[in-house]
């Protein structure tokens, strides 16, 4: 079967473009905008909904990421090699995936309604936040629908023989375009939205994910630092620490 230009665009060009933007964007953001590198918490403005939404979403996402590592990054042959039967994997994947899905969807619904309908929170929302939120919603819903609809309740679809090899192929330089091109549409939308969020990641508040401060566990409590002479800002990089008075968000 011939690979069309459109297929090349969606399943080869777009992923590599997104990966490139992801890497270069992070380098740029780290060099020029560490001041903007924050979780932009709105707990100060609203805590009642955040109390449920944020832990549900974050812990659910951790579970979902772990699921993707198992299901997409680890080849089927490996799990078979250690003696896990396909039915066993399916059962675990559908069950654990559903638990994660419920957590994530509960969390993101609370967080999204909070962001859209609580005026104090909405006022802190930048355009890039809406883009990220929209993509996240697409990813979550197109991720959960097959997990529950196809793999838990339906006949099941073996994404480990189609989507996963294509994804891994991107990193080994030989993506299996036909595999993803003939996967169900919902997987295609899920993958495309995921690549897009990789592309906007470095420019959004999502960068805070890389700053989860695990090293706090080993650090001494009290941090001392010497008063070192700091260089002035690099010319042309702005170096703005605090926004000017009267400037809107």
């Amino acid at each position: 079967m011939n690979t069309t230009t459109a297929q090349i665009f969606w399943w080869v060009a777009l992923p590599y473009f997104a990966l490139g933007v992801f890497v270069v964007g992070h380098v740029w953001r780290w060099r020029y905008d560490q001041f903007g590198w924050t979780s932009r918490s709105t707990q100060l403005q609203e805590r009642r909904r955040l109390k449920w939404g944020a832990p549900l979403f974050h812990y659910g996402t951790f579970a979902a990421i772990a699921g993707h590592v198992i299901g997409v990054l680890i080849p089927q042959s490996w799990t078979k090699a250690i003696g896990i039967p396909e039915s066993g994997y399916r059962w675990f994947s559908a069950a654990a995936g559903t638990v994660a899905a419920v957590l994530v969807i509960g969390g993101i619904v609370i967080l999204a309604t909070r962001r859209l309908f609580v005026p104090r929170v909405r006022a802190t929302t930048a355009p890039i936040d809406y883009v990220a939120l929209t993509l996240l919603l697409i990813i979550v819903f197109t991720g959960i629908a097959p997990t529950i609809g196809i793999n838990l309740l339906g006949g099941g679809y073996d994404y480990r023989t189609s989507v996963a090899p294509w994804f891994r192929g991107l990193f080994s330089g030989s993506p299996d375009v036909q595999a993803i091109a003939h996967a169900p549409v919902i997987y295609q939308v899920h993958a495309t939205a995921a690549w897009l969020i990789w592309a906007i990641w470095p420019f959004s508040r999502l960068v805070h994910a890389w700053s989860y401060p695990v090293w706090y566990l080993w650090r001494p409590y009290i941090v001392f630092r010497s008063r070192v002479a700091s260089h002035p800002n690099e010319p042309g990089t702005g170096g703005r620490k605090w926004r000017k008075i009267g400037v809107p968000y």
Partner: protein
Amino acid sequence: MRVMANVAMVMNLDKCIGCHTCSVTCKQVWTNRPGTEYVYFNNVETKPGVGYPRRYEDQEQWRGGWALDKKGRLQLKAGGRLRKLLTIFYNPDLPTIDDYGDPWTYDYQTVIDAPLGTPNPSAHSISALTGRDMTVQWGSNFDDDLAGAPRHAAGDPNLSGLEERVRMEFEQVFMFYLPRICEHCLNPSCVASCPSGAMYKRSEDGIVLVDQDRCRGWRMCVSGCPYKKVYFNHRTGKAEKCTFCFPRIEAGQPTVCSETCVGRLRYLGLFLYDADKVLDAAATPDEQGLYEAQLGVFLDPEDPEVRAAAAADGIPHDWIEAARRSPVYQLAVRHRVALPLHPEYRTLPMVWYIPPLSPVADVVNATGYDADRPDDVFATIDSLRIPVEYLANLFTAGDPAPIRRVLRKLAAVRAIQRAGQLGLDLDEDLPASVGASDEELDDLYRLLAIAKYEERYVIPPAHAEEAGRLMGQHEQLFCSLDTDGGPGMGGHGISSYRPTGTPGSPQTFEAEDGRTRFNLLGWSGKGQAPGLFPDRGAVSAHDPAEGGLA
């Protein structure tokens, strides 16, 4: 012994008139920006009162500061490291903006635009958070001067155990002012709470700061500080706090709050302390022993051994000399009239307070009151309008003995001066009865009443020789005016001046953005000035710092 230096402040509450000048000047300098409307690095609270944010002193609710665990080890009251990481998505101990008060402004434009002749227009209150109309509910100083005290003052956590005695009735009410800044603690729980390691204590002068580039907005410092003196900038998503005006301190100048204090009640100076003793002192089993324990951490700069050790630990000579003249050391250690605010939080705070004297509350029934000797307030210390127990809850974890001792000493200073002025007889045993000599009480009087600018603020300038060298290097490469918004903004120094065309032709040059611009230098004002204004629709160069997350 590991000697370190810490700049510190003492405030004489006897002199505070609650004018809020310190708060206003501090705000103008540091927090006059969007996102920090509600932030007061310095605020003045009326006591008794709930404080700012509301009831911040109730650590059973907010769980700031340190506590001893069952084995007597020092632990953050809000829990250990793992708990902090697990609650990072939702911090259960964080106050909301409503505990501070929704910051607001007014719709002045309506007033300005009102047509002539209409009834008086009114300006609505507008929330600074949302830009929408709002009803003002609460803010800083809503209980200033005991406003609404019958309703609010009972919420003062320091009144616990005193409810029987303190009644918010006009005849019996008492009040005084408590100006508060960051305590720049020796054992700062905000620094310990910061998962990112963005908060730090400067090893030279002990000032506690937030590295704005490293802060990731996890907001554990806000809840970790028992004094609630770390604030969350709701626009930048970063923590900010009192900086002890470090650029001024580095230049040997007092902080803005001290400089502008109308009552001249603030003193600034150095403490030398033994860094090895800090944790043991903070882990003192008895809360009421924490005051003495902290005194034990401080080192006597008159002791030659201490001076030698300080020099060996790299403290510059002029700093050691400044420590010898430090007014805060005199007040806190030598005269022992200054006390730490809430030592029971175990952070070893470095902004100390001289508790206020007050009139005798109930002259008729005061035990020991002698109408012939109105200055003999010793016997009546317990009948002063401000209950000793209340001050003890603020400054000594509830132990009234140090408060009585300080108030007696302050009363003795007054009695001696009064006797001197009026030619009255004085009990010769008076100085000894407060554990001081004549000379010491005279020194204390001078320090409290007369001390001039140079004596109140003994601040050795930072040693920035190395910084100067770095700056010099840098300036050879770049224009120092080339800061954001500065006169050199946007250009790349001399390299951006690239003359085009032949000499004598219209003076244009190729600017950094690639456009050909007209050079106004040498322009007669007549004739054409091509390229002076950008073409219609042309977009200026994009500033990379404004991209991404706005």
